[in-house]
């Protein structure tokens, strides 16, 4: 390090700002020059300090007025967008449109071969339907149809457009309007093929009220249907299947889908009843399978001397277990990365005592022998959130944000989703308020804020949902959070419940951008629940990240039973957050512990500095939730088999051995948490001693949790399985069954049996 220039380069190197040629030169210098190495290290440390302090500085935002002005500018520069969540055509306007509609329909009948007229007719019928809907139920909102911005009646004054709405002028309605069209140029629906054609005609009137009508917001006009069908001379038919071969076929894209959906729905109806009855929703796996799981590597053993602190965020998610169960019930072993052990352990609730005093959860530690490695100790840390009686549940403001994109059109997705949300809805009362936002190609409000006492309205709105189109997750998330904050209940439950297969493919689609969006929204004190549905293109990684960043919880719903567990039995836990940003830090005493390994929580690890940093987001705990974490501990005097050790350093003399306390405590458990609406964390500290309990004397909960961990490690092909086998996992689970009123633990036994059989093949 001779010249000043070299120093500047070293700094640039330390900050990753060097080009490749200089990089190599600096590397060479570093290999020889300890002073240079020292400087690089210093720069990095100073940079890290600066980053953490500077980035913690407040970021003031623009005023609402200013943001609105920018939004207005966006609108002005684009073609005016017509979906707005407030837009409701005035009755007079709609009536005028209806007259136009009738004229156009007549015109279309009399002037064949005008595909344009056909389109208008379609639109007009949609309008008329909308009017009907408006007349029938003005309060019960319908999805806002998106109109082509071509005609004067829909040319809205921009000032009426709420500033925060997305301007998306999608060409199709959301969900697309079911459209009956009169097509005079086709006298026979030839393109449909014989059976389907007759099917279409005979079923049409039924389909329009049962299937089509549900979709779009409009109650079909019975007379219209019948009229059209009774005009064989004109050849009225539904625009269906491949019959739309004209230039306008693109515009009918959504209609086709509607039709085919309706058609398939009919065919499946009987099937689905079956599914309902069995409470198990399995569909043939979609091909090709594009499920995605983030890579996960098991936490290694860490020496207590070098790494005395283990820090992680709690995680109450349970999705991984339900997902693993789905694989196993389909007689497949799950992909290892789909197995998150902490979520499997936390799927089950444990019998920890209720908290005392003002702390929102109790902390329970138990230590016994590790069942898969007799010399090791297993430390179980268990938290139990305060239970809230159902009748003491605070008032809630729930926004159901529902993915109705084409990928949701499977029995295990949208239909199951509807039934699950209906279960939840039936639990609500007059203190609760529900809004429903859907998103597909764009986002729209299906149900404005509605009291929980008005169940019929909510159930009906759910019933109407129908899948179609691409998935514009970001717009839906925006709208849902806006709705939630408009109806914000101070001191109540304010939560967006996102139901999706996670396959976002329009708008902000990268996981990074979506999580940033959610992270931003999470600051608004609105919590998030992510309910995952379906398979085939299931995006586990996206959804877990969303829930993680969005102050939320994440469950995978593979059956109506699971829906009941998450939304009815554990309703309070799912909805009511009692503490947020809950972090655990354990300091291990090297006098008692050689090394330790946190089982699971791989993607919840925090830097030790994050523990005291209140800006660092962490997991939430809901009312009555239990959270369990397991550590495998190698006692002092032993070494874990897996660590080959490293050669002694060549350039450094070993540091003086640190003074090790002679305390007989094994570890000190520290917890930080915030009140759900608080910004400052509180600290709990508990020292823990190992009382040398044997596995046999451990509690049933301890045994069961250990068995689940064992099973998870086996499914993950973890290098730390020790003596674990499927058989031993089964035995341990059996001895840990305890009181299992709902049979969840018994179900676990059958899953172990299945996995054992599959693995043995």
């Amino acid at each position, binding site marked *: 390090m001779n010249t000043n220039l070299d120093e500047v380069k070293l700094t640039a190197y330390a900050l990753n700002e060097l080009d490749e040629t200089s990089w190599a030169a600096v590397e060479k210098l570093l290999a020889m020059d300890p002073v240079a190495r020292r400087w690089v290290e210093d720069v990095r440390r100073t940079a890290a300090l600066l980053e953490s302090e500077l980035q913690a500085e407040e970021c003031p935002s623009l005023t609402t007025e200013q943001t609105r002005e920018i939004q207005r500018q966006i609108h002005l520069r684009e073609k005016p967008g017509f979906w707005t969540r407030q837009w409701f055509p005035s009755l007079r306007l709609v009536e005028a449109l209806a007259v136009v509609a009738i004229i156009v329909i007549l015109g279309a009948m009399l002037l064949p071969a005008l595909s344009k007229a056909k389109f208008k007719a379609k639109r007009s019928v949609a309008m008329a339907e909308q009017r009907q809907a408006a007349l029938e139920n003005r309060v019960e909102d319908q999805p806002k149809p998106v109109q082509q911005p071509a005609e004067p009646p829909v040319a809205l004054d921009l000032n009426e457009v709420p500033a925060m709405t997305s301007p998306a002028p999608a060409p199709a309605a959301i969900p697309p309007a079911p459209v009956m069209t009169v097509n005079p140029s086709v006298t026979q629906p030839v393109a449909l093929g014989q059976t389907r054609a007759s099917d279409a005609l005979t079923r049409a009137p039924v389909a329009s009220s049962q299937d089509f009508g549900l979709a779009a917001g409009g109650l079909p006009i019975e007379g219209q249907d019948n009229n059209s069908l009774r005009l064989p001379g004109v050849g009225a038919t539904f625009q269906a299947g491949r019959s739309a071969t004209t230039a306008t076929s693109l515009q009918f894209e959504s209609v086709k889908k509607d039709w085919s959906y309706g058609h398939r729905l009919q065919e499946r109806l009987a099937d689905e009843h079956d599914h309902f009855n069995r409470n198990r929703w399995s569909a043939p796996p979609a091909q090709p399978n594009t499920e995605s799981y983030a890579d996960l590597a098991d936490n290694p053993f860490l020496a207590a001397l070098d790494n005395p602190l283990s820090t992680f965020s709690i995680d109450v998610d349970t999705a991984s277990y339900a997902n693993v169960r789905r694989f196993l019930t389909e007689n497949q072993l799950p992909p290892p990365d789909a197995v998150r052990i902490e979520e499997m352990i936390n799927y089950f609730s444990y019998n920890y005592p209720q908290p005392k005093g003002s702390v929102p959860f109790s902390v329970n530690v138990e230590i016994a022998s590790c069942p898969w490695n007799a010399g090791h100790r297993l430390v179980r840390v268990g938290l139990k959130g305060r239970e809230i009686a159902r009748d003491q549940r605070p008032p809630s403001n729930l926004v159901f944000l529902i993915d109705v994109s084409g990928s949701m059109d499977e029995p295990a997705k949208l239909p199951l989703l509807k039934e699950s949300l209906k279960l939840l809805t039936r639990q609500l009362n007059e203190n609760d308020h529900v809004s429903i936002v859907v998103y597909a190609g*764009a986002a729209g409000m299906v149900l404005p804020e509605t009291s929980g006492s008005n169940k019929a309205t909510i159930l009906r709105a759910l019933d109407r949902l129908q899948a179609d189109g691409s998935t514009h997750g970001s717009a839906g998330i925006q709208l849902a959070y806006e709705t939630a904050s408009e109806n914000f209940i101070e001191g109540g439950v304010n939560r967006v419940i996102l139901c999706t297969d996670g396959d976002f493919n329009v708008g902000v689609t990268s996981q990074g951008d979506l999580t940033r969006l959610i992270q931003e929204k999470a600051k608004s004190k609105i919590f998030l629940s992510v309910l995952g549905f379906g398979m085939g293109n299931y995006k586990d990684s996206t959804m877990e990240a969303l829930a993680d960043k969005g102050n939320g919880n994440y469950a995978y719903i593979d059956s109506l039973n699971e829906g009941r567990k998450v939304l009815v039995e554990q309703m309070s836990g799912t909805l009511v957050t009692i503490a947020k940003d809950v972090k655990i830090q354990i300091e291990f005493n090297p006098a008692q512990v050689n090394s330790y390994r946190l089982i699971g929580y791989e993607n919840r690890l925090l830097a030790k500095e994050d523990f005291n940093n209140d800006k660092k987001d962490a997991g939430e705990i809901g009312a009555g939730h239990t959270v369990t974490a397991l550590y495998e501990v190698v006692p002092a005097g032993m070494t874990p088999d897996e660590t080959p050790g490293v050669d002694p350093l060549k350039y450094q003399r070993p540091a003086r051995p640190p003074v090790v306390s002679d305390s007989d405590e094994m570890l000190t458990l520290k917890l930080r948490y915030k009140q759900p609406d608080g910004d400052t964390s509180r600290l709990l500290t508990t020292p823990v001693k190992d009382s040398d309990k044997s596995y046999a004397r451990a509690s049933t909960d301890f045994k069961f949790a250990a068995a689940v961990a064992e099973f998870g490690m086996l499914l993950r092909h973890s290098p730390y399985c020790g003596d674990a086998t499927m058989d031993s996992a089964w035995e341990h689970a059996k001895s840990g069954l305890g009181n299992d009123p709902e049979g969840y633990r018994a179900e676990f036994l059958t899953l172990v049996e299945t996995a054992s059989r599959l693995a043995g093949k």
Partner: protein
Amino acid sequence: MDMTEAKSDWIKVALREHEGPLVRYATQITGDLDRARDVVQDTFLKLCAEDPARLDGHLAQWLFTVCRNRALDIQRKEQRMKPLDDVELATRPGREVSPAAQAEQNESTSHALRFLKHLPPNQQEVVRLKFQTGLSYKEIAGVTKLSVSNVGFLIHTALKTLRQQMAETGAISERRSS
């Protein structure tokens, strides 16, 4: 998704990501939060007229450049030069922390910020752009109209000074292990 939707999404994402950092940055230049907000609003209004494809890959640099120019304009026009220390105070987040939490915090942070504000303004600016905003040397050079090597030199000098001062006062402890 059609073009218009893509564009409005693009602007919204830009807002979400850069709004706060831009206001913070502009406040450091103008010394006044309201003016800073006006500057940032103007910046985004300009963004609305831009072609997303043209700015692809250097959106942040573009935003900070426009924001800086506008902020300097206003500052020059109004001749309101505020010493940076006041701005610091004005933009420091007002937290309510218990004395105990505060003590804990004092222990764990080194208060690099204390020393930062004694650096020359040009060093402060590049340090903030680098470590607060996360821009690269090259982007900072683009924003500040300095050369890349000049930026490197300023950052190096700033870090060296900070490092020395912190070591002298013991604000930075040798927390190598833990």
